[in-house]
């Protein structure tokens, strides 16, 4: 997950060490907006070779929610 955490930190404009499953997507320097979601889709495709749905990503509250979606998509 480290490459993913590094990328997420850049997207949320927070320190990489501050990224964990409990990180609140709506309490970071950058807004969890359409640009952040688009960036995250590309990041997840790059790190895990899976494509997540934009609407579901938009609805995520925490980094853990995203990680759960990645896990589910990888198993599917």
């Amino acid at each position, binding site marked *: 997950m480290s490459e993913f955490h590094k990328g997420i930190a850049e997207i949320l404009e927070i320190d990489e060490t501050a990224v964990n499953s409990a990180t609140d997507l709506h309490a970071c320097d950058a807004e969890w907006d*359409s640009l952040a979601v*688009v960036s995250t889709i590309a990041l997840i495709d790059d790190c895990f070779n899976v494509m997540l*749905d934009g609407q579901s990503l938009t609805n995520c509250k925490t980094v853990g929610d995203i990680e759960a979606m990645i896990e589910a998509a990888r198993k599917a």
Partner: protein
Amino acid sequence: MAHAVKIADIAEFIPEGRLSNQDLEALFPSWPASKIYEKTGIQTRGIAAPGQTAGDLAQAAAQAMFAKGKVRPEDVDFVILCTQAPDHVLPTTACILQHRLGIPTSAGALDVNLGCSGYVYCLSLAKGLIESGSAKCILLLTADTYSKYIHPLDKSVRTLFGDGATASAVVATDAERSAIGPFVFGTDGSGANHLIVPAGGFRRPACAESAAEFSDGSDNVRSANNLYMNGAEVMAFTLREVPRTVDKLLDKAGLARDQIDYFVLHQANRFMLEALRKKMKIPSEQMPVRIEYVGNTVSSTIPLTLISMFQQGLLETEKRLMLVGFGVGLSWSACILTIQGK
């Protein structure tokens, strides 16, 4: 007898109006100018003046090409204009341009309603017209004024799109082989809603109700008369289809990846180009970018990039290029273009 085909000349016109990241930052405080540049790779966008249409931009691009002297208006026997912002619902803007450019009345003329995939599609039409012996010198114009569709307070698209036009002369040559082709195409109309101006056609005529403004979840304002882009869906589509299309074309052309000198992709924005480049493992020096001072100019991005490659001296000796257009439709296409060099 089949005729070989090549691009004889190419020119551009970007309107004088400019939209800078500083202008945008003033409207969207959550997106500083530096962040817009970092994500999009764009500093300024050309913006058509009120009353300045895609037809006007295309005319200026064509005149810039004729001024170079390689191709004259009287040589042209077919006009193709790729635009999604025609001067009128009817007549066809290409017909108006035939007259305004002094092209003989014996020429054919038509518009093509495609966006970011349009240049490659129009090259295939031009090649078909020449190889079938139907025409010898095709004026291929790309022109769009998406700025006129965009709500001033919709940062999701206002940060990306710029207005502009290009003119290419696609001509018959004595060469043994065509410099253009083969082609691969793709269409997925199930994604039509992801990049759309919902109202203003006959499915939903523009009216007071369609002009009602609303705010989306990311604080963007627009109405059904404005351009809407679902960035997430467009990104997913691009990452899915573009690498596949590149592989398909290599296969069809019987070429290995290292036999392509440059991959000239539709210049959507820097972030998308970088994501594609990484996914396809293409070295950055083989993927030219021209977006910084023009923005995403829809069907003009590929020819604008070709012009800057000529200006940088990248095409002085024979080079094999792959052109890839993708976007609104959803629609995509790719072709091989061989540049002979000087």
